[in-house]
């Protein structure tokens, strides 16, 4: 084919010629991996930054407040004349709100995932899934506003004794916020179960329900559990909803109709409040943040561990 342009140099000759010029670029290219590595290490630096910040200031805190008191204290009165820095009220608030959120998001998210992955016709899924994902995209401040101005009054109609700020309403709304996360991740896990597996079960005369519960869910279990753990981690870290709708009482109680403060809400309160840098209360912010960070870190590692360890091989 090169025969019909005798008057021109052949392409391979041209390429050979260009090769000399490209030597320079080849040199440059060697730098690419290092350059990219530098960029990639920014995320590591971020982690280092977070850990350093939290640790450095927490150390100052624990110089004033014994670690044991912090982790076993049931009274949190940071600004009082005789300040007490027990983190348990905050942990309690965080755990209770998370449990409420997961009681809402777990079953509903899971069942939505089943519907979307196993039952919904394609066109329905294409509409419903993005719609559901809008829920995850609603800014949490909006949820906070909604929980405070709408859900709480609504709950009051059912439980008249409920307080204007309570942990129940933000808990429920946090659950709503997490539904799409669980639905979406579980749906992904279930959708990635190969169809051949479903076909195998259906071909034996299983109903869809049986196929789902006996074959698909067991096969997708690791992904589903991981989605739950991530949901929990999200609930633990959620800030604005509880900051607005759950008030700031630092009660150590289990009354979900009452006001409680979570770790995140405490951080917002103290950071936006009167605490002056250098005071114990200011440092307490970082001690709480460190606790929060460790909590979510454990959750995330757990999620990762679960999805790796229990991944079904198929």
């Amino acid at each position, binding site marked *: 084919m090169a025969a019909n342009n005798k008057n021109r140099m052949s392409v391979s000759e041209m390429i050979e010629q260009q090769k000399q010029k490209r030597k320079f670029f080849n040199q440059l290219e060697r730098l690419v991996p290092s350059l990219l590595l530098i960029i990639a290490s920014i995320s590591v630096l971020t982690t280092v930054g977070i850990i350093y910040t939290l640790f450095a200031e927490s150390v100052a805190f624990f110089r004033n407040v014994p670690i044991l008191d912090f982790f076993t204290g049931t009274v949190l009165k940071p600004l009082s*004349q005789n300040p007490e820095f027990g983190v348990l009220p905050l942990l309690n608030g965080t755990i209770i709100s998370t449990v409420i959120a997961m009681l809402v998001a777990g079953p509903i998210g899971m069942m939505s995932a089943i519907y979307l992955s196993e039952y919904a016709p394609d066109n329905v899924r294409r509409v419903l899934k993005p719609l559901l994902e809008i829920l995850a995209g609603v800014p949490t401040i909006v949820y906070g506003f909604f929980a405070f101005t709408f859900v709480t009054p609504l709950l009051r109609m059912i439980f008249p004794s409920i307080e204007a*700020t309570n942990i129940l309403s933000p808990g429920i709304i946090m659950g709503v916020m997490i539904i799409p996360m669980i639905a979406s991740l579980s749906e992904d896990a279930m959708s990635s179960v190969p169809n051949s597996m479903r076909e195998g079960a259906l071909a034996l005369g299983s109903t869809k329900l049986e196929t789902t519960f006996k074959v698909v869910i067991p096969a997708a279990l690791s992904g589903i559990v991981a989605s739950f753990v991530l949901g929990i981690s999200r609930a633990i870290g959620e800030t604005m909803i509880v900051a607005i709708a759950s*008030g*700031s009482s630092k009660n150590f109680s289990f009354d979900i109709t009452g006001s409680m403060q979570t770790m995140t809400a405490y951080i917002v*309160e103290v950071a936006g*409040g*009167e*605490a002056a840098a250098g*005071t114990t209360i200011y440092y307490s912010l970082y001690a709480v943040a460190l606790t929060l960070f460790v909590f979510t870190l454990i959750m995330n590692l757990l999620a990762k561990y679960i999805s790796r360890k229990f991944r079904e091989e198929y």
Partner: protein
Amino acid sequence: GSGDADGAEDAGSESGSSEELSGSIAIDGSGTVYPLMARLAEDYMINEQQEVSVEVGRAGTSAGFEKFLVENGTDFNDASREIKEEEQTKADELGFEVQELKVALDGLTIVTHPDNDWATELTPEQIQGIFLGEYTQWSDIDDSWPKEDIKTYGPNENHGTYEFFYETILEEQDLVEGIDLQKDYSTLVTLISEDKNAIGFFGFGYYQSNQDKINAVSIDFGEGAVEPSLDTIAEDGPYADYTRPVFTYLNASRAQEKPEVLDYAKYVLENANNVAGETGFAPIPDEEVQSQLEALEGIE
């Protein structure tokens, strides 16, 4: 017209509005003072100096001082208390001359649920009794009052209001266990407006904005019950015992360099009394305004 800025400097300023100034002014500090300061800042920018930008934050009195007492810090710090010794020391170290400006008076208001038709008048002793936990039921105060548990509310320790309540009204005795202390006033107002046995306290401004939802308790300081109002919470008024001044602190060293800062300081003093009422504060006496203005003249 930023080109006029140079001219403004040597012209000095007798009445702040005559010269066109530019630049920016940063204010932070107390959330209690914030409504007043925000209002003043806004009026200043609209009516006096369009080219000057004023930003008002409300990090809180102490956090505000943190931002105030650093190189390139804020120009003003609002405070619902006086500057503390260590803060003053820090200012000295930095070489800042700090000028205290008293801008208004805030009356601490005791509030109840609108349906509460019994506890409309209380004495300071009874209030202490309630908030120290000596009375647990209304009937402990007066036999004719309902035999129901009193529920106490207030802003939490974050607020200067709490500090004042604790230091002045409770004379540094510990508050009753189980009092519901909230961070946000909106929460507090809602809580009290929905609890028939509620009694709480906060600044007069928050009562004024929510008169339809809550009642104010009249206080009997020994000469008959006094209802808190803009008139009664004046410096020598009958409600004075429950009244405290609020301040803004000026970095006077900065004001020497930035004419707009000085100009704004004057504006605040001259106009605070005009808008105080709308934002829930009582004015301070004119003489005091004048003497503070004179002190400012010294800065130049």
